[in-house]
């Protein structure tokens, strides 16, 4: 589904990703862990097409397409979703209006019929139920005045409505108390399926107690230095990232 090969990327002239290789198959949940500054968020931003990230080498293919050649909106329509670490507040744009515009824009790009307001409302009600979210969020402006937990839940709710093929969760656990974390995890788990893949970017393994990954990768200095199953996360918790640094092959980056 997603094939990242030898990805190098720069931000403001500074090399951040230095040869990252990763393959994600349908239905798999991958966790990307790593210390601050390892390039975790850069990976999410490069995959979703944010401005300011320059890919200097390597390739990313998504379901056989060159993902890096697509505009952000085209990536979304292709089925890539990025849950932001810091969801943006957009005063004056109603949450429901925004979500319907997004869904219909994606459907239009895919050559599917747009949903009318009745059809959309029905869909939203179903998803609210699954996510256990009150419809009060719908009537407000996008993320405006939302608490940290509400913002993250709104991201997951958007994901539920947009039904991406690949969801990238960028530090979705940061800033959440344990109850909010559980709610978010519950939402994500409800969306797991054999066709949908997840890339969870996180600093702490806390989230992985609630969303069990199939694979865990450790990102350090712009490359994946260690891969394993969920037990790798437990080792990290025990030993800290210093343990990874000791194990990362010195001078491997030429």
């Amino acid at each position, binding site marked *: 589904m997603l094939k990242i090969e030898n990805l190098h990327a720069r931000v403001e002239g500074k090399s951040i990703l230095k040869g990252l290789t990763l393959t994600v198959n349908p239905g798999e949940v991958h966790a990307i862990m790593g210390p601050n500054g390892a390039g975790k968020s850069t990976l999410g931003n490069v995959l979703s097409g944010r401005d300011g990230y320059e890919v200097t080498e390597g390739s990313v293919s998504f379901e056989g397409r060159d993902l890096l050649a697509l505009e952000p909106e085209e990536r979304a329509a292709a089925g890539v979703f990025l849950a932001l670490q810091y969801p943006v507040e957009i005063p004056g744009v109603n949450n429901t209006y925004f979500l319907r*515009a997004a869904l219909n824009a994606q459907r239009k790009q895919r050559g599917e019929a747009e949903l009318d307001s009745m059809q959309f409302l029905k869909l939203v009600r179903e998803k609210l139920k699954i996510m256990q979210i009150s419809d009060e969020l719908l009537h407000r402006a996008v993320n405006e005045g939302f608490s940290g937990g509400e913002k993250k839940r709104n991201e997951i709710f958007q994901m539920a409505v947009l039904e991406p093929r690949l969801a990238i969760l960028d530090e979705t656990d940061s800033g959440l108390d344990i109850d909010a974390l559980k709610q978010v995890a519950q939402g994500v788990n409800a969306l797991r399926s054999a066709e949908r893949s997840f890339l969870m970017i996180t600093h702490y393994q806390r989230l992985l107690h609630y969303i069990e990954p199939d694979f865990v990768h450790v990102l350090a200095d712009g490359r994946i230095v260690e891969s394993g199953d969920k037990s790798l996360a437990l080792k990290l918790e025990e030993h800290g990232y210093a343990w990874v640094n000791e194990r990362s092959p010195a001078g491997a980056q030429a």
Partner: protein
Amino acid sequence: MSEPARTPFVASLPEAEALARLPGSGVAWLDAARRENLDAFAAAGLPDTRVEAWKYTALRALAQRRFAHRDAQAATRAVDAAALALPGVDGPRLVFVNGAFRADLSSLAALPASLSLRPLSQALGEDAEGLRFALSHRYREAGDAFARLNAALAGDGVVLRVAAGKAIARPVHLLFAGAPAEGDLAWHLRTIVELEEGAELALVEHHVSLGAQKQLATVVSDVVLRDGARLDYAIVQDAAEDATLIRRSQLRLGARAQAAMHVQELGGALVRHDLRAELAGDEARLATHGVFALHGRQHVDTQLAVRHAALNTASESIWRGVADQRSRGVFRGAIVVAEGADGSDASLSSKNLLLSALAEIDTKPELEIYADEVKAAHGATVGQLDERALFYLRSRGIPHAEARAMLTAAFCRAVLQAMPNEALREHVSQLLLAHLPAE
């Protein structure tokens, strides 16, 4: 010292004898006022940018043009009536095409008894004396050039009066249309509106284009609200893209009178609006909401001046500006709280959005307070679209142009939301977005 050379603009003015062709000619005080204003205009010409009121709006190019101040075919030009309609505005209608009243396009049958609505040309014939106060004005300020020109050459316009204590149910539609004509044409209209004690009216002033043209139009409006009167006044300016449109609106509010203004500046190449309001009676209240959305090389200049001159008056002004491509917006908002106008409450917000590196917006709020116990707040900003918000929308699948439009509309929402006429509000929102290019 030698006289400055007469600009082509001044040289092409009609001779004094031509004033005799205007409606109302022969009324001695009116003839005198017209002649005096024409002479004053010819002597001073158009102001340059050294005149403070015209600091940001250069008239050099206009001064080099020659205009005919009368369209001989105005009464017979073909007009597509559909272009004149506005959703939500279905009341009496007065239509002017290239400055001439068009009875055939207007809708003045079955006016309510409490509403008097006539073209100025007709009112001058019936009761010139009743218009003397408004029409005998001499404009003396250096920045008043167009008011002088209008006072000299306006032969038609609107005379509207609502009887005391009466509410007019349906909005009155004033239509100022520019139709393609041969050569450079200028036309001038004068509007006189009076709401007597406790009267209520919804008024829509609508500037519309009937095809590409480069006309100069001036409109001077006097609006008087007697004690307790209420006015909802929308101005939808959607003139031709090469048009020059200069307007002055003067409002005077008596005790407990309430006026709400909604101004949308969309069309025109060179547009100037002087909006002056005087809160003359105790507890008068004024709200002005305005927005301009510019593209191409449009230049739109709004000069808002609100004067609190009585006790416990309130004014709220919310303005938004959006400039794309190489356009330029100018907004000056001046609030004066006069001596003795204690208990005044004034606020002014001017927020502006630049959609292009080549666009420019100059905004200047001014506050002068000479009274006690006054509440006053003002603020002005010029910024750009939030790149983070733009990416957020795109990352959810919304294409770039649509995302830009969505954020721009959200930016203007605070202004548009204030319009009580829902159908008109919806229409104007769409117009506004249509005026911003999709890059």
